[in-house]
């Protein structure tokens, strides 16, 4: 081994740089040990400790001390020192701004009017939503499986800050014409919606949009939805007590551009419904309460009541492909839904006409379906229910499971009519007819089972309402815009079959 020590007067680098240089040189071929350092007392001590013999120096000298293998080239090692000392980095663009890691961090980068949309797994949704509320922002929580106690805590805190919690399990909102989650693209107007139900809200959006277009063609502007604020399916339960509904009503009441508010919800807790009616009465803006339940109006009737309050007659709700439909091919009705509220609405109507309906979201516990979704009875299945979305995407995004059940229902000789829904809009799959139309055609290939579809969408939706409808009609379906209308049609077909059989 041989040592090479040299002093470089006037050379300077900070100690950290030099430690790094030393490390780089140590890795060079033939180098046993290397220390490049300013000749301070401490460094000289270290160098002497390593066994180097250092000539007289001042702290302003740079010491290059190398210990090399006998056959190593000193010049090569010094070249390694020079290379390590040379500045290597050109000025570079700013690559140091990483995306935000929390909702709170993201909101620090946006303006005060920003809305947060939370769709992380339910176990983490509350934490993200709290970030938004703490920063004074409204939040929509699409996530489901959020414990009710957390929902109450979120909404209690939001109320103290005048913020709005849309959700948890809120599928749909439209704010100033911007659709969040699963939402239809609608013509702006002067109606406000408060919805404890995503697909219920979407049905209203679609119907009011259609009516508005119809009226506009006849010179009446202004029928359309300005905001649709979701509140989550549990908001009007006794546990939650309607906190978000109250805040949403307050917002819409304060908005000078809202003439009428409509509230749509699955059946609320009676005491909450009572309090809600009182709150609604106290507002300056008229409120139409569209609370679903036995003996209550269907969503289409609610839309018609809204139109009536604005002084308009309801249009004829469109139906296409009625010619496709022959008589029922069996005694049983099979409803296969992606929208929970649409399934509910159809069950309520069907129960009155046909008696009890078996379902995975039954109207009473004794009617619950187990794992088997196809039984020897009238059945209606909500494929958007939590139990059927575990480990897979919502059927509005991935229709595989429903299409499988469609084939099974068609193969059952007892099946008389198949009732389906299809929901368009932001967030839904880009071309839903591409998979559903062939599935319908296949279902009708053996025998012409009536397939009645409620197609919930608008002509502004990204999927194209007309194209989707035409594809379904071409596959043999009868397509309604109103789910109530579609359901009535299906019930009528079953009733006729029973009449004929009798």
């Amino acid at each position, binding site marked *: 081994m041989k040592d090479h020590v040299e002093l470089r007067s006037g050379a300077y680098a900070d100690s950290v740089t030099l*430690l790094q240089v030393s490390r780089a040189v140590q890795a060079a071929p033939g180098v046993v040990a290397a220390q490049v350092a300013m000749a301070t007392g401490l460094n000289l001590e270290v160098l002497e400790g390593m066994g180097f013999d250092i000539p007289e120096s001042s702290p302003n000298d740079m010491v290059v001390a190398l210990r090399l293998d006998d056959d190593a080239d000193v010049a090569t090692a010094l070249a390694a020192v020079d290379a390590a000392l040379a500045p290597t980095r050109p000025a570079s663009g700013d690559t*140091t701004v*990483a995306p935000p890691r*929390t909702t709170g961090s993201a*909101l620090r980068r946006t303006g005060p009017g*920003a809305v947060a949309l939370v769709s992380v797994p339910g*176990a983490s949704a509350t934490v993200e939503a709290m970030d938004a509320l*703490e920063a004074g922002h409204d939040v929509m929580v699409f996530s489901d499986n959020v414990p009710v106690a957390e929902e109450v805590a979120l909404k209690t805190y939001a109320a103290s800050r005048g913020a709005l919690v849309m959700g948890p399990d809120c599928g749909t909102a439209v704010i100033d014409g911007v659709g969040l989650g699963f939402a239809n693209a609608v013509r702006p107007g002067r109606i406000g919606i408060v919805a404890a139900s995503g697909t219920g809200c979407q049905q209203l959006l679609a119907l009011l949009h259609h009516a508005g277009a119809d009226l506009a063609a006849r010179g009446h502007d202004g029928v359309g939805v300005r905001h649709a604020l979701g509140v989550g399916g549990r908001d009007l339960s006794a546990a939650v007590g309607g906190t978000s509904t109250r805040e949403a009503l307050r917002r819409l009441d304060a908005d000078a551009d809202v003439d009428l508010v409509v509230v749509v919800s699955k059946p609320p807790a009676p005491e909450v419904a009572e309090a809600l009616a009182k709150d609604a009465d106290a507002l300056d803006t008229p409120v139409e309460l569209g609370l679903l339940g036995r003996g209550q109006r269907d969503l289409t009737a609610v839309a018609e009541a809204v139109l009536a309050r604005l002084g308009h007659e309801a249009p004829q709700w469109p139906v296409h492909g009625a010619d496709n439909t022959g008589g029922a091919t069996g005694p049983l009705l099979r409803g296969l839904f992606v929208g929970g509220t649409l399934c509910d609405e159809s069950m309520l109507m069907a129960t009155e006409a046909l008696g009890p309906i078996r379902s995975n979201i039954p109207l009473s516990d004794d009617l619950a379906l187990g794992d088997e979704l196809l039984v020897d009875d009238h059945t209606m299945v909500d494929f958007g229910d939590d139990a059927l979305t575990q480990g897979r995407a919502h059927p509005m995004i991935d229709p595989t499971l429903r299409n499988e059940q469609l084939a099974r229902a068609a193969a059952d000789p007892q099946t008389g009519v198949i009732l389906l829904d299809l929901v368009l809009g932001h967030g839904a799959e880009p071309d839903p007819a591409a998979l559903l139309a062939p599935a319908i055609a296949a279902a009708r290939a053996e025998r012409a089972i009536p397939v009645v579809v409620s197609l919930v969408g608008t002509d502004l939706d990204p999927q194209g309402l007309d194209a989707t409808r035409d594809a379904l009609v071409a596959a043999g379906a009868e397509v309604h815009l109103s789910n109530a209308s579609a359901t009535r049609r299906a019930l009528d077909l079953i009733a006729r079959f029973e009449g004929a059989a009798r």
Partner: protein
Amino acid sequence: MTETTVVTVGADMFADSVAGQAVGVERVDWRPPMPGTERDLATVATDPRRPEANRTAVEAMLGVTAHLVDVAPASEVLGLEPGQFLHAGPPIEWDRASGPLRGALMGGAALEGLVDDPEDAVALFESGSSVSLEPCHHRSAVGPMAGVVTPSMWMWVLEDRATGRRTYCSLNEGLGKVLRYGAYGPEVLTRLRWMGDVLGPLLQAAVRGTAEASDVTGILTQMLQMGDEAHNRNRAGTLMLLRDLSPAMVGSLEKGPFDAKDVSEALRFIGGNDHFFLNLAMPACKLALDAGRDVPGSTMVVAMARNGTDFGIQVSGTGDQWFTGPAQVAEGLFLGDYGPDDANADIGDSAITETAGIGGFAMATAPAIVRLVGGTVPDALATTRRMHEITLAENPRWSVPVLEFQGTPTGIDVTKVCRTGILPQINTGMAGRVAGVGQVGAGLVTPPAEIFPKALAALAEAAR
């Protein structure tokens, strides 16, 4: 309702759908939290006390101005008795103490005259009969590296004038073979004796003789704009302190007992030790953080400290409880032919600087030392920005010019650490693992991840 911008967290398709409507979208790069923390995170998030508690803790911390009011022996200002030893980090006993802590204790015992030869102190500490160990933090003090404080050591005394609260720290010995890195050779003890006999009294005379007490918080504000991050680089701060104190040090010559040679030696000592100011930065940070302690419901970390074996944190909402895990070995550069095997695990109370939002958290302002672990200037900017993800506030006084004078990320939030998995970045020196060796390098280190879920669980328990 106003024009809408949407922040999305979760499914990308919803962000795409909003962007498709020509609306501004800020996407959160969300990842699952640290394993098993979801339930506690939700509990703490919905603790109704938390938002206000954190605001209270942050405001209290940011409201503190630390003034240098005195220099005096630990026996006087801390009531430290012979045989009592303070040390860095959470509580620890001799049998679990690391090499550098043992070395510093042995040197400290010799300094106090409990033994003649530091080596003899091993038996003394093993018996444990006439000696006791206690964390600096339990006495309103902080100590760099081993942080050993003995009764005769002179301490900086910092005060928050608004509340009268005080914190303390020993005087910095310099680099290399020094007590705080676990060295206890004769030269170490000789230097400490000089510091006790000359430097301490001179500084006391200077501080007491300076009409306007030094505003340590203010010096920190300035040094952060002069390339110091106040943990591994204290060069500008040291010079500003020297500027404040040297007139009165020279002025003390009139009264004696020190002569010009003493003053000259003291000035040279301070000026020759770029880390001299660290021992003022640390108690200034502690003074601020102590004001944020004991706010029920607050998730703010008020201390991070290491004893060479354990890394511990204390949190505002959980009082004096320490949450500890194994201290890590820093990654960095080594002096001479020392290597990673020679380094002890992380040690020292100096992570109080990061706890207060400087040190590693202010890396962006100290580009001169970014190469500590082969880092680059962009890395430094990214580090400071990343720390904003886990902190509650920006310090309006401590700003970083290169980041458009954004305040340093201040007030580590236990919940944000658990949510993001981002660990506090600490700049540190490395002590040799064998007692007596001294410093072997410097680098970067993080706390053990597990201590944050532990603290979170205690916060959740307190919230239920």
